[in-house]
């Protein structure tokens, strides 16, 4: 009796959490119903508007459109992949930041690199526009010095879009991402470092043998979290930087959905169908990561 009662009590403890998860994560899935209807405001959905898998067929029925969706997926994977591949960058940045001995200078660098994180992408773009447009600062200096005759079109260039987008992202995020590592570094046992110093280790050796190994657990947690957001690499950045010249390589899944849902009157069913596609790919990715984890660590997490 008391045991049964206790388990009821314990269930009540987690009930608020379950309600939250239900309301925030599961209830919105009800919106998927729009992918199976021919919904158009102001008419509400009803039995007559049910069209089954029509919008999914619409995506795959036309080779040009299918190629478009493929291109968008490639962009998404490529840009998320690049930031994943460079995810060690903030860690290294934090390590070197920590090595700066002059404290005011260190604080200054840290503040300056953290600030961009608090600027919205729209403002970042207006900065970029003022600096890089044909009459912007960079072109004015280059033309003024006589190094080039014609202004360089930085913003409408279609080369290295993925890499340049990664640069902007890093400029904005690196300082912020480094905070976590700085905290981890301060938690490293001073005695280890002092012992290494007594043994005659150089600074590089200390970094390589002590600091980085101590940071690796933090690093893996952050990589794991980033993996979960692999497909949701946001759209604001790409939305503000997109133009008709770099569109082919900058359009990511979220942006593609946005463009379909808002151009003209907007097609809500089709954009819902495409964002469902995103969930499916995410689930596939999750199983792959889980499989890799099983192979490497011997245990999965699902």
């Amino acid at each position, binding site marked *: 009796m008391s045991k049964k009662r206790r388990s009821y009590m314990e269930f009540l403890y987690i009930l608020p959490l379950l309600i939250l998860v239900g309301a925030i994560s599961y209830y919105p899935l009800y919106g998927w119903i729009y992918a199976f209807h021919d919904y158009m405001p102001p008419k509400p959905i009803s039995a007559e508007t049910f069209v089954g898998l029509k919008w999914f067929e619409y995506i795959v029925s*036309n080779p040009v459109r299918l190629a478009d969706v493929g291109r968008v997926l490639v962009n998404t994977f490529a840009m998320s992949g690049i930031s994943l591949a460079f995810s060690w960058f903030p860690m290294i940045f934090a390590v070197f930041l920590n090595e700066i001995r002059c404290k005011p200078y260190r604080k200054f660098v840290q503040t300056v690199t953290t600030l961009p994180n608090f600027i919205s992408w729209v403002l970042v773009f207006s900065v970029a526009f003022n600096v890089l447009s*044909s009459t912007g600062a960079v072109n004015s200096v280059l033309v003024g010095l006589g190094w080039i005759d014609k202004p360089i*079109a930085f913003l409408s260039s279609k080369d290295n879009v993925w890499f340049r987008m990664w640069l902007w992202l890093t400029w904005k995020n690196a300082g912020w991402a480094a905070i976590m590592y700085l905290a981890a570094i301060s938690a490293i046992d001073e005695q280890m470092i002092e012992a290494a110093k007594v043994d005659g280790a150089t600074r590089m050796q200390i970094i390589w043998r002590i600091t980085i190994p101590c940071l690796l657990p933090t690093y893996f947690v952050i990589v794991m979290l980033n993996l979960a957001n692999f497909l949701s690499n946001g759209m604001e950045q790409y939305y503000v930087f997109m*133009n*008709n*010249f770099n569109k082919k390589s900058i359009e990511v899944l979220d942006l593609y959905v946005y463009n379909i849902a808002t151009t003209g*009157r907007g097609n809500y069913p089709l954009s819902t169908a495409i964002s469902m596609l995103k969930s499916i790919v995410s689930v596939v990715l999750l199983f792959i990561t889980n499989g890799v984890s099983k192979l490497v660590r011997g245990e999965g997490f699902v």
Partner: protein
Amino acid sequence: MKKILSVLLTLAMLLSLVSVSAVAEGEKELLTIDVYDDAANYNGIQSGWFAKLIKDKFNIELNIIASQVVGNTIYATRSEEGNLGDILVVDKAKFPEIVEAGLAKDISDKLPACENIMKFKTQIDVYNKGLTGEDGKYYGIPTEMTDTSPTSITDDVIYSSPMLRWDLYKQIGSPKLETLDDLLAALEKIHEVHPTNEEGDPAYPFSLWPDWDGNDNMIGPANVVQLTTWYGQKLKGSAMLMPDMTFSPLYERENAYYKITKFLNQANQKGLVDPDSGTQNWDNACAKMSSGRVDVMWYSWQVGFWNSVDRLNAGTAFRFIPVNDMKFYADADRYFGSDRMFGIGAGVEGEKYDRIMEFLDWYASPEGATFEHDGIEGLNYVVENGKFKPYKDNALMDNLPVPDEFGGGGFSDGNNAINQWIVSAICVNPNTGERYAQKYWQSYKDMTMTEMKKEWTEVFGAEDDVSWMKANDKLLASPSVDFTPAADNNDIIALRAEINSKLCEYTWNLIMTCSTDEEFETMWDAMVAELDGLGYKDLYEYDCGVWQPEVDAKKAAAGM
């Protein structure tokens, strides 16, 4: 000190409120009207002089729900709730579905008694008959109807034509322009004599902006699509309406879309297009226009960002320069109204209904229309011998302070936020015998008879743009008809969005990145192939079907 003042002011206001409500006692109480408004650029309760005007007159206040401000999704949410608003100002294309969904009220009982609105009975009858198929059944009131005729052109300028700076044009020797090639050569010379503005910032003949692409029911970059009207071709959705009133696919090489794209590309190859064209937005482009960094304009309203009275007097203003092989498409007066509708929300009943109709009828009265189009007597205009004369005509532009008796505040801040009228500004005001719009007043014409205007008349032998076009048979006037295009279904919406995005992407690349004619042709072929692959032909067939009834009606109205 300030605090005491503000307390005193508040007290004074309260007292005056008490006295007003004492007078209004026994009359109507304050009524707040929700206006669902696709035209408004302001969201919230109307404030300032217009608010005071209607409060004193009807004891009402307007709560504007502006879809352009809060986002289009407000339309979906409010219609899900079953109540769009008390007064509806909506895009014409949406109105039939609003009526069908039961969101608009049948106003057949009250509308015939509104004598000011019913001055436009012909137009209202035609629209509602088309909507319901029945006589004497009313749901909607068209907006900006004119009292002229479906085929007349009252304006002396048309919506789009090539306009150059008069001083620069004179400086290069006022060449006669026969074709686009001549225009290009002239622009090259203009760029040579005017490489920068006075501050030394680079100036270009063309500075384009991509953020209007796909607007106004037309696919493709708005800048390119607009210029096709110089050759009498008007895009209807995705189908090009040719001067002979037949449709033709947009991308045919014989059509003006190709001609204009190629023209802009050649201009770009010669360095006559602002390199920021593909990446800047309208605000950037507009700032360049007002600082003299642009040498060509093509919208009739665009010159408002440069042509001031001073510049008109100095001869440095923009003016239409004829190119002889062009034939200009122009819409005749919008006799049957513009692209929006007035309606009443389905939930409006009883006394509220009466008061809303009373307000709307005043809105269409000469008094209402004068406030809407001309502003306040003693601020925007003065009356001399029964005619209006412009007074402070920068009141709207510079947000001049309004005298306290009219409610104070800035003129622009307090201006009518509904931003849509029943009576067009080109209607004749029965109180003055002149049109409402200032530019038709004799007093205004006398004030703006400048040297530049006289010179233009001397060179081209005509009083104004439209008379030149009429005299030289360069004008294709498209009669006004009552027509609402069928609303796209979801398939067409998706297809249109995709085609539009592909077309824009290719066109901008054609203009800005092709450095040789061969490259241009190759890319054009690739564009046609990709558009066809996406299903352009289906969209084209669909649009031809949708717009054919309008073409037939236009033909009938023109007596073709």
